[in-house]
């Protein structure tokens, strides 16, 4: 016999499944509510909406909820990461790292959770209706549209969305369900007979294949314990008894713990079959049973029968609920699992039974019937064949339907993380038109994994990939602590530590940059005036200060007028320019002398070592980081002056009049940067970044200081993505952060529970806007609790601990000519044939 005979599928057309009985079914992917943000009260509202909606469905409607929990395919993982496994460019660290990450994530066994709802009427075609197939099919389609409205309406009452699948998607889904994990998919086509009967006898393989048999990948065999389809063994488990009680999202939401069945790391699916029987008949039968139960409980002269009393009590309670509109429905639950060998399948079945038992379900393994039950668990295939029904009320049935969906983030991400609960991929695209701007903030306590996350962003989102762009980082951590130091070394960036004995930036621009059309450019004059006022203590207001500022400006103009070199002048040159100013006014003469004295103090003082020097620091490049930690010992006035100089470089990068070219600005240790006077710059950049094609990232460790600075309001207002890392080492700031960001109780719980395991993973709470899973043209605000795992190669790239760095240096010194990729690869994986590293 042909295996298709077990599969009562006729066709897939008009966005519907047609079964052998001519019954039509629609298939929709359920996009449920996000459990990370849902509170108990909100779930109650979902439940009430669902109960109210579903009990209004007509008699004769069939539903099937299918929970598909499989492994994310390698192709999809490669697509998300943007690299093929094993096709690595060993000359390019970033490309190699991406390929290694794809390989690592393929090994991580990432999960792919999808929930589908299948609905239709369980009335098929009669023999006479089969004679006029087209006409009957149209009638069935019209009936299906009525069911569509009812079912989608019921889901909408609970604010659940459903994305109806088209023909192509249904075919793909069916292929995935019948032959999970198959690499090559042949298109399903209707074939007309091309050969006559005689030819078919000689060449039986030329016969046209029915649609349904094209889904079945190979021969089938069966025995007591399993059915084998092609090279996979399948087992079907069926619910023998339902739990004593149910709550909404029985298969989606844990009771304060883990998501049910999430401990199962193998592929399986659960099908919940639902049928709405004719209420008049089932309730008549129910009343009759109630009478029997009453008689049994009230028998005179008998010993008290507790069981009968309980049954009678239950009948009474249920009768009340039925009087209030509840319906009696038939449900059946099947779990299907598969493996490549029988022992593996048996082990999985045992784990599955245990997992179901935790959920208070009593399940049994089918015996000699896996091959038939397997096909009944497919979308739309239960009508007419499934017979493992249980009777219950509609609210309990509603509790078994899918209501939750953990967000998967953007469709085309630059960085792929894992959902902390389900191990599904969560992708984040740094630049998206669906957001108002591409600014982001990262908040995390010390040791939470901020540096690692930033390095991963640099590697996958900023320095490579589709949103690749120029990077400028401002840090205040020093070379031993800076998040950027290692990244600069590995990815060829320039790490500039500004300090008196380190690198310097001459604040004075070259004449080429300063002069335009023979005149000093106003913005240059303004910048130099502000800087010089800061340095010469000429802050404040009033006529005296205004007159001094006029002299400062005159000095700047005079310097550039008489400057003949192509190199930039210095403050010592400015001092000479001031001395050369001729003024007849006695007051001005006095002010000028004061300014000259103050300038000499700058030139000769400690600030002179920073600001009266030629530029030694890089000011241009694709990846540039300024670390201002070297200013730590200078007075605030000097810090502010240098910050002002750096700010000017940042502005030149951000506002380069090329909005088509991506730029990324990272403000690391923002709380410290704010103390040196970068508040204005951060404010200005955040508010105007979008128009210039710039993303601004603000990274904060010291939340209290950051909060006090007053810039947090601007940051919150002008960022569309907030990434929270663990604050377990600073529990005091958890409540203020939760309050400032308006977390509800579920979000605060998720935030409070964030953890970081050094060397293993760090957890991140993303609050952003991502691609909407239903409407592709818009975005959707989400919160996701994710985990960042690193591949061994990633780990070597971001390694900042002393021992790890020393090991890297040792190998690099021993093999000075070896490419960096080879060194990191050796440290991460060990040399081929040489075993693992020490």
């Amino acid at each position: 016999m042909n295996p298709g005979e077990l599969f009562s599928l006729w066709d897939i057309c008009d966005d519907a499944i047609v079964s052998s009985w001519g019954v039509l079914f629609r298939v929709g992917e359920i996009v449920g509510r996000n459990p990370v943000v849902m509170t108990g009260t909100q779930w109650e509202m979902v439940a009430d909406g669902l109960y109210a909606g579903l009990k209004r469905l007509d008699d004769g409607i069939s539903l099937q909820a299918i929970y598909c929990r499989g492994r994310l395919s390698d192709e999809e993982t490669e697509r998300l990461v943007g690299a093929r496994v094993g096709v690595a460019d060993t000359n390019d660290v970033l490309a190699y790292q991406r390929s290694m990450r794809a390989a690592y994530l393929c090994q991580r066994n990432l999960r792919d959770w999808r929930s589908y709802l299948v609905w239709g009427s369980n009335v098929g075609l009669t023999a006479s209706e089969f004679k006029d197939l087209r006409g009957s099919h149209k009638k069935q389609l019209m009936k299906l549209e009525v069911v569509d409205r009812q079912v989608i309406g019921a889901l909408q009452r609970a604010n659940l969305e459903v994305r109806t699948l088209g023909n192509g998607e249904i075919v793909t889904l069916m292929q995935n369900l019948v032959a999970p994990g198959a690499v090559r998919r042949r298109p399903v086509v209707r074939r007309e007979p091309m050969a006559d009967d005689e030819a078919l006898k000689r060449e039986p393989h030329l016969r046209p294949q029915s649609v349904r048999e094209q889904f079945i990948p190979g021969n089938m065999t069966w025995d007591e314990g399993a059915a084998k389809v092609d090279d996979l063994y399948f087992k079907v488990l069926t619910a023998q008894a339902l739990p004593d009680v149910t709550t909404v999202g029985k298969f989606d939401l844990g009771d304060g713990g883990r998501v049910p069945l999430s401990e199962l790391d193998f592929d399986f699916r659960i099908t919940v079959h639902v049928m709405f029987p004719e209420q008049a008949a089932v309730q008549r039968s129910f009343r009759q049973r109630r009478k029997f139960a009453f008689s049994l409980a009230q028998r005179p002269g008998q010993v008290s029968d507790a069981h009968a009393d309980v049954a009678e009590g239950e009948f009474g309670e249920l009768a009340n609920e039925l009087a209030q509109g509840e319906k009696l429905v038939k449900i059946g639950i099947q779990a299907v699992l598969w493996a490549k060998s029988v022992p593996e399948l048996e082990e999985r079945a045992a784990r599955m039974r245990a997992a179901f038992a935790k959920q208070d379900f009593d399940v049994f393994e089918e015996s000699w019937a896996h091959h038939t039950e397997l096909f009944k668990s497919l979308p739309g295939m239960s009508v007419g064949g499934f017979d493992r029904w249980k009777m219950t009320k509609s609210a309990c049935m509603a509790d078994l339907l899918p209501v939750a969906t953990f967000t998967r983030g953007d469709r085309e991400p630059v960085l792929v993380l894992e959902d902390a609960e389900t191990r599904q991929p969560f992708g984040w695209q740094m630049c998206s038109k669906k957001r108002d701007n591409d600014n982001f903030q990262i908040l995390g306590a010390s040791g939470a994994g901020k540096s690692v996350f930033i390095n991963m962003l640099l590697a996958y989102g900023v320095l490579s990939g589709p949103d690749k762009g120029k990077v400028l980082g401002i840090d205040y951590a020093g070379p031993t602590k800076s998040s950027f130091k290692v990244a600069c070394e590995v990815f060829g960036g320039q790490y500039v530590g500004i300090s008196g004995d380190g690198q310097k930036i001459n604040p004075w621009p070259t004449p080429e940059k300063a002069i335009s059309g023979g005149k000093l450019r106003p913005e240059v004059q303004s910048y130099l005036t502000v800087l010089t006022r800061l340095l010469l203590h000429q802050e404040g207001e009033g006529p005296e200060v205004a007159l001094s500022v006029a002299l400062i400006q005159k000095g700047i103009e005079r310097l550039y007028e008489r400057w003949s070199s192509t190199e930039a002048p210095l403050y010592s040159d400015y001092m000479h320019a001031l001395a050369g100013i001729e003024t007849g006014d006695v007051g001005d003469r006095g002010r000028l002398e004061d300014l000259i004295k103050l300038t000499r103090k700058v030139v000769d003082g400690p600030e002179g070592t920073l600001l009266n020097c030629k530029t030694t620091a890089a000011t241009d490049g694709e990846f540039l980081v300024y670390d201002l930690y070297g200013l730590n010992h200078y007075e605030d006035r000097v810090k502010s002056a240098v910050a002002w100089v750096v700010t000017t470089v940042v502005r030149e990068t951000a506002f380069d009049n090329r909005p088509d070219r991506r730029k990324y600005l990272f403000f690391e240790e923002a709380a410290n940067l704010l103390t040196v006077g970068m508040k204005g710059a951060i404010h200005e950049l955040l508010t105007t970044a979008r128009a210039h094609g710039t993303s601004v990232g603000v990274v904060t460790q010291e939340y209290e200081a950051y909060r006090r600075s007053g810039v947090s309001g601007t940051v919150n207002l002008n960022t569309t993505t907030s990434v929270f890392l663990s604050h377990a080492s600073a529990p005091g700031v958890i409540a203020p952060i939760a309050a400032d960001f308006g977390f509800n109780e579920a979000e605060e719980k998720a935030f409070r529970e964030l953890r970081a395991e050094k060397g293993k993973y760090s957890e991140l709470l993303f609050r952003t806007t991502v691609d909407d899973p239903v409407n592709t043209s818009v975005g959707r605000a989400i919160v996701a609790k994710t985990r960042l795992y690193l591949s061994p190669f990633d780990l070597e790239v971001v390694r900042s601990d002393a021992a790890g760095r020393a090991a890297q240096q040792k190998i690099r010194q021993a093999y000075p000519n070896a490419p960096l990729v080879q060194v990191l690869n050796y440290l991460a994986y060990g040399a081929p044939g040489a075993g693992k590293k020490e």
Partner: protein
Amino acid sequence: MSRVNTVYKCIENSAHGTLSWQPQDLMVGAAIGGLVGIVSRYMVIGVGVFSLAMGGILLGRRKWNGRREYLLLWARRFEHKRTYRRLDPDVRYSPLGARAEASIGGTHEPR
């Protein structure tokens, strides 16, 4: 968490209502009853055993969740070659005599 719904165990196994006889139930019952009647030479005993067998079969089916294909499944365990072959024709593809190539229209192309 939201409302807790009680699953009423008193009706849980009543989804099949009163199980009706199927042709194979009658065949099995009649075979058992007839055999006992012939062996005992008392047809009354045969009829009694037939009644008991029918009750037993229906109770068994209820216990086995109303499984209708019990005879077919029971017989399949004795099949020597337990295989469905893809090369065999799918003769029952078209229900109720509709032709195999009968199409109800539509397309398999993605929307």
